[in-house]
């Protein structure tokens, strides 16, 4: 790691102020992606602003027909939350399947979506559940938030405060893990709710999470695994590496979508 200044603000306002002052700051929430990146000397921030100690960012609230999750809420907390399990069991299951137990004890929802790793799980939940991302500056729809590999709509100095997930009627997430890294090689989140039907795919695309319109249309007409069984996403634009070709990933999107619909019931 290169040298950096470290700050651990207690409030969001302090965090914003520190971000404003620093030359080239990085926000650290749980650190499960940022710290490995720093260790590999792939980033050289002037300041690391640790928002993990801001109490106001660590909460889960069920209000009305949605669940609000604070940005610094750990994956394990989401996975074990009675509210999340009750209203959005697919989301709880997704959080409970990120990384490994130790990673889930540190990693946060805000960190995950702000980083927008193309193989991360939470972006699929956000896009697949029509989530709203609240930041220190504005509200961003999930559809507008994810801009490509490791890119989001966040601006400099903007901090995610919370993510709102409306309750789905039906939802499930199915993940095919990369055998080595255990990140999603293909993860498909399907849901039906007030927003209609959504199918969001993570892991497979070169530009990160994306929706599959053909599948959404088919499921809108007929919510059943068979409805998506015959729909293939084009292999163009999907990742291809030693773990599998783009064609294989395209095939897995269909298989995982089918299984997710079956699991959602």
């Amino acid at each position, binding site marked *: 790691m290169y040298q*950096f200044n470290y700050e651990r603000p207690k409030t969001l306002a302090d965090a914003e102020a520190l971000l404003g002052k620093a030359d080239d700051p990085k926000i650290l929430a749980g650190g499960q992606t940022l710290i490995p990146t720093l260790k590999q000397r792939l980033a050289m921030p002037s300041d*690391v602003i640790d928002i993990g100690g801001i109490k106001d960012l660590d909460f889960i609230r069920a209000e009305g027909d949605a669940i609000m999750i604070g940005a610094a809420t750990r994956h394990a907390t989401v996975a074990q939350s009675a509210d999340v399990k009750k209203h959005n069991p697919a989301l709880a299951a997704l959080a409970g399947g990120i990384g490994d137990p130790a*990673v889930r004890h540190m990693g946060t929802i805000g960190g995950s979506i702000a980083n927008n790793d193309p193989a991360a799980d939470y972006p699929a939940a956000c896009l697949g559940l029509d989530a709203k991302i609240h930041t220190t500056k504005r509200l961003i729809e999930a559809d507008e938030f994810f801009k490509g590999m490791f890119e989001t709509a966040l601006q400099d100095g903007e901090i995610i405060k919370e993510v709102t997930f409306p309750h789905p009627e039906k939802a499930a997430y199915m993940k095919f893990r990369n055998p080595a890294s255990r990140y999603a090689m293909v993860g498909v989140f399907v849901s039906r709710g007030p927003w209609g039907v959504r199918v969001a795919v993570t892991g497979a695309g070169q530009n990160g999470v994306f929706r599959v319109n053909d599948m959404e249309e088919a499921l809108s007409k007929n919510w059943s695994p068979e409805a998506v069984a015959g729909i293939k996403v084009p292999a163009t634009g999907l990742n291809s590496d030693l773990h599998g070709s783009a064609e294989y990933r395209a095939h897995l999107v269909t298989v995982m979508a089918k299984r997710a619909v079956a699991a959602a019931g």
Partner: protein
Amino acid sequence: MPVVSMTVNGKPASADVEARTLLVQFIREQLGLTGTHVGCDTSQCGACVVHVDGRAVKSCTMLAAQAEGAEVLTIEGLAKNGELHPVQAAFREHHGLQCGFCTPGMIMTAIDMIRRNPGLDEETVREELEGNICRCTGYHNIVKAILAASQEMR
């Protein structure tokens, strides 16, 4: 350099360290507690697992500063008055270790897993070990040891 203070195995620990100091470096280099190991640099092998405020974390993927004020438990802090923790005892009884290098992380992970999962079964143990790599045992006896310890601790 910032001063980082925490409680490690029940004793206060404090040191002036660079901000970039990892928790595992603090434990091994500042405190000389070398039971916690480093086996990879991509946060996957789990040889470095310790408990921070009662939860298993990878001490190679956490800054020491993030543990400011926390209660940290390492492998050295498990046995009380010379008596092994039931998970330590089970690893020996069921030959859940060979070279011993991954063992501290395995044991710390196992304790955390048993805490969170009453009524563990083999499949759950194997899934819960996703973040801990062992090259010697083929996991067979590690799984056996954890299941036995979870029975013991019920």
